[in-house]
């Protein structure tokens, strides 16, 4: 607030001085110059009349010689006053208009409006730095779940996109360099309601700077970062960045998982996708010879996970010198049939098109398909706006960088227990995962389930805590429908955390204890219904005992009487 007003006052100093001077000269002249009244006697205009006359003359509202007709001397002075005051007004108004157009002033007004909207944000929020493909996917998914976010991006076009975007909750955005600490602070970094910082700019250095700034200015705040090179990743980890996402490694890892145990891969896929989208089909990548086009960061990550699964991969690379695969790769782009044939596409089982050019990737896949129609096709998609053509190409698996990052972060932010669950699920057999997947699909149908975490504390489950103090409550009892307690809610408990001990797929007869943390997945709306029971003592009593007790002071009093 201050900055804008002070800037305005400072710039208005000169025009105001000119106006005051013009008015006082004109008024003084009118008072000093003698006139005559109706009877021709000499008369001096008073300050009151002079100020009245000058006021309407200067603004050219109207004209009249009051209270008596002017003498020639008075008319001469009026002429001088008209030009003096009109010029003074033109100058002042011109100054105001210039000031309003000035970039520095506009910037101050925008920043002030942004800071005000952050102050008025009374709910917890996340700061998202970078509103590119990934950032917009993440913010959209967060807003669909009613979670507030604040966006900072350096590109003014993206901030305009944010303003035009039809989001469920209001998301304030500022066009600024997020790696400057002043802007992070303005976005609410040190606010008590800030729940975390997500650095998603396409510049690793900027992400690094954001992570350091956030950790220094607000240490307990979780910081999630995107990193695309190994050394930046290590650098971020060194000062305690809570979660670092390397989209290439994550994808390579997932592909390896799909080769190793398709059931576990499907479980991962279902639990981390954006909710309320159709469920993906299970994936069965074949074991055998794979052809890998492009040996950049993505190619290396895929090759690593393929070889750890014992799958042979032939590399095609246009620039073996730079990528460091001299000697054991086929030189070429992979978009032409010769290179693919030289790499042995005829007897391969799968192809990965992993260059950083979408057109080339599609061309590689289409050429390979003609040479060997039975191939398992994987392609890397670099740009979000190529969605439709990648979908039309009929690929088995698309590596979409922004989606991978957005899904990963969403899981981190909305269900803090999920990463731990997934880590433990990896250690289980494919058979275990298959059983769980079929249970999930039985509960949630063909849409991606919602995943949520429940902590049994005063904030999230006050009514349950109250009951727990007197009586045992079992997990199965809170997973019932509050409308009809014989019906189960369409949800599944995935994990129970009690202190340092965790239990996968807890049974329904587990007795709950205060402080437990539970991970659920289920159909849309199941979370809200469960929460109502945990908040409201009457609803919970109905779930536990089937008894609908009257409430309110009068009814309680009547009940006691009986």
């Amino acid at each position, binding site marked *: 607030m201050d900055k804008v007003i002070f*800037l305005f*006052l*400072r710039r208005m100093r000169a025009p*105001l001085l000119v106006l005051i001077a013009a008015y006082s000269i004109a008024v003084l002249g009118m*008072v000093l110059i003698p006139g005559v009244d109706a009877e021709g006697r000499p008369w001096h205009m008073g*300050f009151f009349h002079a100020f009245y006359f000058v006021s309407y003359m200067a603004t050219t509202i109207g004209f009249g010689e009051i209270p008596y007709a002017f003498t020639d001397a008075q008319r001469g002075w009026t002429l001088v006053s008209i030009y003096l005051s009109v010029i003074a007004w033109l100058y002042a108004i011109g100054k105001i208009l210039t000031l309003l157009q000035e970039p520095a002033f506009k910037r101050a007004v925008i920043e002030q409006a942004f800071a005000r909207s952050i102050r008025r944000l009374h709910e917890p929020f996340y700061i998202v730095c970078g509103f590119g493909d990934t950032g917009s996917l993440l913010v959209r998914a967060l807003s669909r779940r009613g979670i507030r976010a604040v966006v900072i991006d350096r590109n003014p076009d993206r901030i305009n996109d944010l303003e035009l975007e039809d989001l469920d909750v209001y998301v304030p955005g500022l066009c600024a360099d997020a790696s400057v600490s002043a802007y992070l602070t303005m976005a609410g970094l040190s606010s008590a309601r800030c729940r975390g910082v997500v650095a998603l700019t396409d510049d690793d250095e900027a992400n690094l700077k954001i992570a350091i700034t956030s950790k220094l200015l607000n240490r307990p705040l979780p910081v999630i970062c995107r990193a695309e090179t190994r050394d930046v990743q290590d650098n971020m980890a060194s000062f305690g960045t809570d979660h670092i996402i390397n989209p290439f490694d994550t994808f390579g890892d997932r592909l390896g998982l799909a080769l190793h145990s398709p059931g576990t891969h499907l479980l991962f896929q279902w639990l981390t996708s954006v909710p309320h989208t159709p469920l993906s089909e299970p994936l069965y990548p074949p074991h055998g010879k794979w052809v890998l086009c492009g040996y950049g960061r993505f190619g290396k990550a895929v090759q690593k996970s393929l070889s750890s699964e014992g799958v042979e991969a032939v590399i095609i690379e246009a620039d073996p010198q730079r990528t460091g695969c001299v000697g054991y790769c086929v030189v070429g782009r992979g978009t032409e049939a010769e290179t693919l044939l030289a790499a042995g596409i005829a007897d391969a089982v799968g192809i990965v098109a992993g260059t950083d050019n979408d057109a080339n990737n599609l061309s590689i896949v289409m050429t390979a398909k003609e040479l060997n129609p039975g191939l398992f096709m994987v392609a890397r998609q670099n740009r979000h706006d190529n969605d439709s053509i990648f979908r039309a190409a009929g690929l088995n698996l698309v590596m979409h960088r922004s989606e991978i990052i957005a899904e990963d972060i969403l899981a981190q932010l909305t269900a803090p227990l999920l990463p731990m669950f997934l880590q433990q699920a990896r250690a289980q057999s494919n058979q275990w995962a298959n059983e769980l997947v079929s249970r999930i699909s039985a509960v949630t149908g063909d849409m991606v389930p919602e995943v949520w975490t429940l902590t049994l504390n005063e904030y999230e489950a006050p009514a349950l805590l109250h009951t727990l103090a007197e009586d045992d409550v079992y997990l199965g009892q809170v997973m019932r429908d509050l409308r009809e307690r014989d019906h189960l809610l369409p949800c599944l408990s995935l994990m129970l955390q009690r202190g340092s001990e965790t239990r996968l797929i807890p049974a329904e007869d587990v007795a709950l204890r205060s402080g437990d943390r539970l991970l659920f997945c289920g159909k849309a709306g199941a979370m809200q219904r469960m929460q109502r029971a945990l908040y409201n003592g009457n609803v919970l009593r109905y779930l536990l005992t089937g008894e609908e007790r009257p409430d309110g002071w009068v009814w309680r009093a009547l009940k006691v009487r009986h």
Partner: protein
Amino acid sequence: MNLEKVVFGFFIILALTLNFGFFIGEFDNPEHHNVYELFAVIVVNLIATVLKFGDRTQMGALLLATSLVADLQLLVAAVVWGYVLHISGTGLDSMAMGSIVSLAGGAMLANIVSVVLLIIETANLRR
């Protein structure tokens, strides 16, 4: 020497001296209080106020506040003057003059504070 400081100090002190000049004289005697002097006080005070605009320091804020107080008092005095002369038609009797001069006296106090603040600030500079 800084020309800006000279102009600034000039207007602040001139506001006080003119104010004093108007104020002095028999309290409720219209003969002793000149309307031109009141006009000059108002103009100089307004200029002094505008000169104080846009200073973000604590001292600047206080200086601006004192000036605004003086402006308010003087403008009310001028309005009273115009009212008794032209609107109510009671003329400049001793009661009207008394209230005009006491308002101007209040403005003078504010102007004194302003000058004292200016002196304190200058003394703190020590150069």
